[in-house]
């Protein structure tokens, strides 16, 4: 199996799609199928690799990069519609 996401750090709760992943398609990292997506993930966008509670930190690079604004399920797309920045809110 060829990987279709990269997980940058072991603490991360999101992976980055290295190609567009269709809804329902298996997510593959480290040569292993992890789960299937619940919606389409555009190239270079983030997918939740575990369930993330509302107000939980989004971890990428092993560091908090945002906070979720709603519960996000494993396999869902993670972007500005379901997270917010801790600084420079518009």
């Amino acid at each position, binding site marked *: 199996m*060829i*990987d279709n996401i*990269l997980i*940058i750090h072991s603490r991360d709760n999101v992976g*980055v*799609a*290295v*190609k567009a992943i269709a809804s329902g398609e298996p997510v593959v990292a480290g*040569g292993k199928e992890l789960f299937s997506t619940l919606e389409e993930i*555009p*190239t*270079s*966008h*983030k997918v939740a690799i575990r369930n993330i509670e509302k107000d939980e930190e*989004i971890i*990428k*690079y*092993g*560091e*908090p*990069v*945002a906070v979720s604004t709603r519960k996000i399920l494993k396999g869902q797309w*993670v*972007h*500005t519609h379901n*997270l*917010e*920045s*801790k*600084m*420079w809110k*518009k």
Partner: protein
Amino acid sequence: MSDISGFIRQDGKVGIRNHVLVMPTVSCVNGVVNRISREVPEAVCAPHAHGCGRGSPRDLEILFRILSGLIHHPNVGGVVLIGLGCEVSSTSRLLPLLNIAGKKIVVLNVQEDGGSLETARKGTAAARQMLEELKSRPRVPIPWEKIMVAMECGGSDAMSGVTANVALGSVSDWLLAKGATVICGENTEMIGTTDVLARRAKNEQVAAQIKQMIDRAEKLTRDIMGELASLVISPGNMDGGISTIAEKSIGCIFKGGSGTISQVVDYGQPPTEHGLILQDGPGYDGDSMAGLAASGAQLMFFSTGRGTPVGFPVMPVVKVSSNTRVFNAMADDIDINAGVLMEGRELLELRDEMIQRLIRVINGEKTKTEINDMDVFTFMTVHPPF
């Protein structure tokens, strides 16, 4: 026995090149430098747009620091310095600031040395003679502790922070474990990462300096860009999947790896500590490269997603693409493709390939920017000219 070699300078620094640098003190005499460059292509010629017309203490500090930094640069074995005579950074003001023990420097001034053509003729002869003298200097084994590698990113794309900067970060961690020094600048690209970086500071003083540097960069960005400050994270970034300024910035600073931050230095200032160094310098590639080179970095890794071909005089630059498309589209310009991480290649394999390339470049193998002569020399100014 060391696996790397270079040239030991009298001040204890180590060069990985033995260049003859031909540099103007002021842009007015760039033509003389360009003429020498055509006559002596093996010399590294570094024309620039500065040297006069600015008077603020901060601009003068930067001007003298950067010009001195290039003359002192460990990769430079000898210098032909071309002045005019009446400029702010004249040779008579610059020379007393230099500690050039053991480094040959020939000083010419167009107003004293017979005008432009005659000065070019004298400069050409001096550069040729210096090259001849330097040829006989042998490479000797050098320790990793003497190596300082700069990490830069520019012309970034959505994968820069996911592939190329992650690869640079793993090389940084390897270098730090070897006892080498790693230096990163680009303070605008640290906005949003104060907590992450301050936590990694060696001590409270360094943590406070990190906070101060990033606060200042953020304030400056807001003052200059006003309502548009949020464009530091642009709609294009968001289309590419980056959701917040912190995510973008951490993707940038990840190129320095995960080590302890031992010092914060001002723009162009040489560090006094080993380890991971942050430089309080701007994000613009040309200005940033000059600051990092003046701090003494002997070479640079430079990640790019869109594909920037730019290099820097005296400091070899290793270009790392974030994706395979740009690597193929700009095969002339890119040294290493980190896009392979999207194609199933293991990070550690790529890292080891980069380290092997790094060793070859230290030992004399030319990078694409060196082969292509893509040098640009420009540096930060703070106030407008008058």
